[in-house]
């Protein structure tokens, strides 16, 4: 079982769209996939039309036993299940803080699903907390969507610094450009510059496209309702390179 997390400290960068679309593409590839929506905003869960149960006890959930397994819901698509978001997840940090090896607990939790799934995709909350650190340490690969603007690049570098400070290997991190507007000079230049300077960037660029924005209306993954759109094709490319990295 592999763990892939999609993360950015900054919100609104296309993180959840990537998490949902990559999960869908992985499941279509035959991988038994679990999408964990750890972002308390719950956008992934919303896209898949899934609500969490009422009785959420994060401490019980983290034990990974029967209670945790019962929270999982099957999506409308074969091989794709979801651990829905819950407002109670905002307390994860407090909870983790009280525990021993507090920065490594999440992997143990995720490992309790290893019999049922080939791939777990984590939609991580947009902040740097103990939970995010747990997610980094639990992941085989961390994907960072980056909008090609100065501010976004700055955020990316902040993340890089954090990894260095906490001694988390950055070689498990890949970034890709998201919400790209080719007609903007700034976008083109930023992409060119970063791809030359930083080999953590994948060559794939997800365009800024209304078909992606419409995910909120369709409440479906893009490839499920617009398989032939250019955006859907770039998500497929992204999945191909991600799955190759995960296989190596």
């Amino acid at each position, binding site marked *: 079982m592999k763990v892939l997390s999609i993360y950015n400290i900054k919100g609104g960068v296309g993180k959840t769209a990537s998490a949902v679309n990559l999960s869908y593409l992985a499941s279509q590839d035959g991988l038994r996939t679990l999408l964990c929506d750890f972002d308390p905003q719950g956008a992934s869960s919303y896209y*898949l*039309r*899934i*609500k969490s149960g009422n009785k959420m006890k994060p401490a019980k959930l983290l034990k990974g036993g029967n209670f945790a397994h*019962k*929270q*999982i*819901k*099957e999506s*409308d698509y*074969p091989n794709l*299940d979801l651990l829905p978001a819950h407002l109670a997840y905002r307390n994860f940090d407090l909870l983790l803080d009280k525990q021993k090896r507090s920065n490594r607990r999440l992997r143990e939790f995720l490992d309790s699903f290893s019999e049922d799934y080939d791939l777990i995709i984590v939609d991580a909350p947009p902040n740097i907390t103990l939970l995010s650190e747990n997610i980094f340490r639990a992941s085989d690969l961390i994907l960072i969507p980056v909008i090609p603007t100065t501010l976004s690049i700055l955020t990316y570098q902040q993340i890089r610094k954090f990894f260095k400070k906490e001694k988390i290997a950055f070689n498990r991190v890949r970034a890709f450009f998201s919400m790209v507007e080719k007609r903007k000079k700034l976008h083109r230049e930023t992409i060119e510059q970063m791809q030359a300077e930083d080999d953590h960037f994948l060559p794939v660029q997800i365009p800024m496209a209304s078909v992606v924005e419409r995910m909120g209306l369709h*409440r479906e993954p893009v490839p499920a309702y617009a398989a032939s759109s250019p955006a859907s094709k770039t998500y497929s490319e992204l999945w191909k390179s991600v799955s190759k990295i995960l296989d190596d």
Partner: protein
Amino acid sequence: MKLQETYILPDHTVGKNLLAELKRVYPLKSLTPVSQRQTSFDSFDWRLYQKGYFLIDQDEDGFQLRKTNTDECWLHTVKAEKDTPQFWWDFPKGKFQKALKDILDVRAVLPLAETIRDLETYRCLNSDSKTVLRLHLEDVSLVQAEGENKSLRHALQIESLRGYESEVDRLKEILDRMGVFPESRPRHFVMAALEAIGKRPFDYSSKIDIKLNPLMSSREAARIIHRHSFDVMCKNEEGMLADIDSEFLHDFRVAVRRTRSALSLVKGVFPQAQVDRFKNDFSYLGRLTNKMRDLDVYLLKRERYRGMLPGNLRPGLDLFFEDLSTQRTEEYKKFVKNVRNGKYKSIMKAWNSFLENNNVPIADCPNAELPVINTAQELIAKRFRKIYREGLAINDLTPEERLHELRIDFKKLRYLIEFFRSLYPAKDIAFIVKKLRRLQGVLGDLNDLFVQQETLNQYLSEISPQRKDAIPLAASIGVLVSALQREKDSVRTHFSETFSGICDKKFAAILELHFGGKATSPLTARSSKKRAIK
């Protein structure tokens, strides 16, 4: 996703009406109907079915192992490279191949039935338009070689989604109110297909399944025993000739050996002249298949032998196996010709009519009318006595030939027990067989290793020095021979320990109870001697 309930319907229209009714109470959304074509497979001796699976080839979905009780897909794999994969190694590498390897071993899979499954799938939605249940209206039909497809069943199936299991109960209540009830014992559609073509699981097994009555005459019992082995031969004939896998020939040979054993061990039930004639005939059938089986045994050991050699010696071994394959092809041609010729056929025909003939004279057959229980008891007791005599005399210095003789006696004993096991309590026989099997395993391994060594040495001496690959070939075989010697030495050290397994009190007590106290076991022998002294 999990199939929860199957409702068998009288016809397709009933299903359609049912869904129309359901639509009024449940938001339903239909998916594009699909038509799947499946071919199901199993080995000749139903190995997959025994483990609870059907192997199904379903259009572009590839191969699936589905549970025979729930139809749940346990494992699946993409299409194999070969159009019609037969052996586990023909399937794509991975979990699926591994599972098949464990279950099938050397057996090939054969197509059982071809079906078409037309599925209309409906999604039951909640207020978020999220699927909470799936309903399948299923029509299964059997593809027939001639004529139209035969309809096998119409059904409505409920499939639950993880996390939404409670919806099943809601729907079942609705169906209950409509007067529709699930099938009490849902049957897999492949089972329905098998029934339609008249195939029954376990219609073949290599195991002996003979039911005897203790008071029936020994001749009658002998006939039943022979008839069983003859059936095994007949059932394997086709697969053996088509060379589907090595087990057809193997099972055929075992049946021949059992026949020969029964002919020579169960004395005085048929006229001796007839017995001699058929002993000769079956000995011929054994010889006919010897060479093929020998080659098969080696070819099956290929991977094991490769594992015994360091990497640099493996190419030499491959040459050896290429030679064997070539020989095998030649032998197979000869064998088919021989089976197709008159002698084989006339032997089988004569044996069949001998077994059918109820007027075989009784004169000069002193045991023919004896109750079979007496005959069985005497034969088994005698064989045990012989085995104890031989076995206890064996030590580390005993020549290999003696172990070989002991093995043959063991085999005879095992056949006798298999023939007559229905006459004795199953539990006791199972206990004896378990102990004997361990010992037989040791003896069998020793013999196998001995024969392998002999053959390899023979092959080694026949390698022509002119062959340009003579050196790597000889080096590989040489190393293999010495590896086999080491293995043999290690197996031999287990002999006495395993033999003591049939020398304990419990074993002796069971023997005495069923086969008489006539010194069957060394333990009883000693105690009766003591009693005599007293």
